[in-house]
């Protein structure tokens, strides 16, 4: 939560405020994430966790404040700069949001080919590797609608990774899944967290998963970070009353 830039800082929110009408969702928020760290955001519903990810992904704009990613400024900034910065960020959504009109392989190759200008063969090669990684090597030609939710979410993870982002944003990626499909998706993510040096910013209600993979946990409430630290500290010995209350309810 320090306010001075440090050399290996990848994401930085400075006094970011976001309002919806009268509802101030983020209130002068400051925080930063170091390169390569896996950070989990926890907090009660409506505390603004999703909003943070959507701001980073430029799906909405803050009302005030500055957001920086990898030195580049996301807000305020011109459309072109934003596009450059955005290429470093991947996101996986709660509802998967695969493109239903493309088969699995094309879902994964589309962006590298069109955005990074990767040749078709190379993109396909890479996509196959990633689909192997998420355990779907036999589903290349299938349309997303023919997959289970868990399979769709694993394709979505592969799709996000295909752009080789520096940061991966994950917003409750298992909460739309049937309980028996959750484990498969979390295993894939654990694998990625372990074997790559990607920076992860992760909103989740799966506290065990958060404990497993996180370097840092940020506890949110009412648009502010009220507590942060290692998962051991946060889960075993929270400082704030609010955190204790929240963990008491979800654990």
């Amino acid at each position, binding site marked *: 939560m320090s306010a001075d830039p440090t050399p290996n800082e990848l994401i930085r929110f400075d006094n970011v405020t976001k309002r919806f009408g009268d509802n101030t969702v983020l209130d002068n928020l400051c925080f930063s994430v170091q390169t390569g760290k896996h950070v989990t955001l926890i907090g009660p519903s409506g505390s603004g966790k999703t909003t943070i990810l959507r701001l980073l992904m430029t*799906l909405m704009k803050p009302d005030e404040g500055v957001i920086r990613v990898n030195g580049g400024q996301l807000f305020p900034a011109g459309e072109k700069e934003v596009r450059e910065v955005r290429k470093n960020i991947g996101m996986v959504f709660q*509802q998967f949001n695969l493109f239903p009109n493309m088969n699995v392989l094309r879902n994964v190759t*589309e962006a590298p080919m*069109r955005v990074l200008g990767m040749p078709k063969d190379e993109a396909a090669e890479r996509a196959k590797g990633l689909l192997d990684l998420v355990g779907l090597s036999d589903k290349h030609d299938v349309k997303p609608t023919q997959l289970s939710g868990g399979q769709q979410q694993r394709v979505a993870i592969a799709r996000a990774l295909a752009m080789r982002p520096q940061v991966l944003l994950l917003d409750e990626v298992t909460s739309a899944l049937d309980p028996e499909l959750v484990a498969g998706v979390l295993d894939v993510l654990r694998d990625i967290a372990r074997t790559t040096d990607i920076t992860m910013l992760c909103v989740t209600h799966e506290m065990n998963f958060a404990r497993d993979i996180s370097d840092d946990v940020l506890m949110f409430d009412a648009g502010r970070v009220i507590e942060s630290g290692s998962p051991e500290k946060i889960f075993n010995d929270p400082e704030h009353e609010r955190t204790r209350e929240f963990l008491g309810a979800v654990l």
Partner: protein
Amino acid sequence: MNNWDWSAVTDFMPTFWDGLLVTLQVLVLGSLLSFSLGLVWAIGYRGPRWVRWPVNLVTEFIRNTPLLVQLFFFFFVLPEWGVQASALTTGTLAIGLHYSTYTAQVYRAGIDAVPAGQWEAATALSLPASRTWFAVILPQAIRRIVPALGNYVISMLKDTPLLMAIGVLEMLQQARLASAQSFQYAEPLTVVGIAFILIAYPASLLMRALERRLVR
């Protein structure tokens, strides 16, 4: 039916076929124009405010005023602007423009039915706007769009007789010319009326079948 004259029907048939050809020509070109122009409007509806607002105004205006008056307007005004166009061209442009404001709404509804998550996923993958539109959004919107467009093609068919007002030799104008010459009104007009039903009814059955298949 006291004075129905079959020979008047036979006399009319050759010019009727000419008229039908013109009608179909207007229909095909007008449809293509309205499909493409409507898409432009629909994309405009989603643009920034300074695009959206004028596009809305123009399309509302065109949609809420009669095609017939628009036909006169273009027919008499285009030349004053130095645009030389035949009646057929003017008519096709006018009907295409008029219907583009309807197809724009069809596109808009189809596009709005694509879940917001698809736009967000495209942004998250940094897809350029053109790819987002043509590879992600439109292919999904199309199944709602196609049957609705088909229905407007049928409506357009039924509006082609208006082009007689500026002298386009479509079916109705042919019927009128034949009547003005022979003073037999019943036969040519009845032939044209039946022709419309014979074309429009099967076409609308086809559209309904298509709708059932595509929109589920």
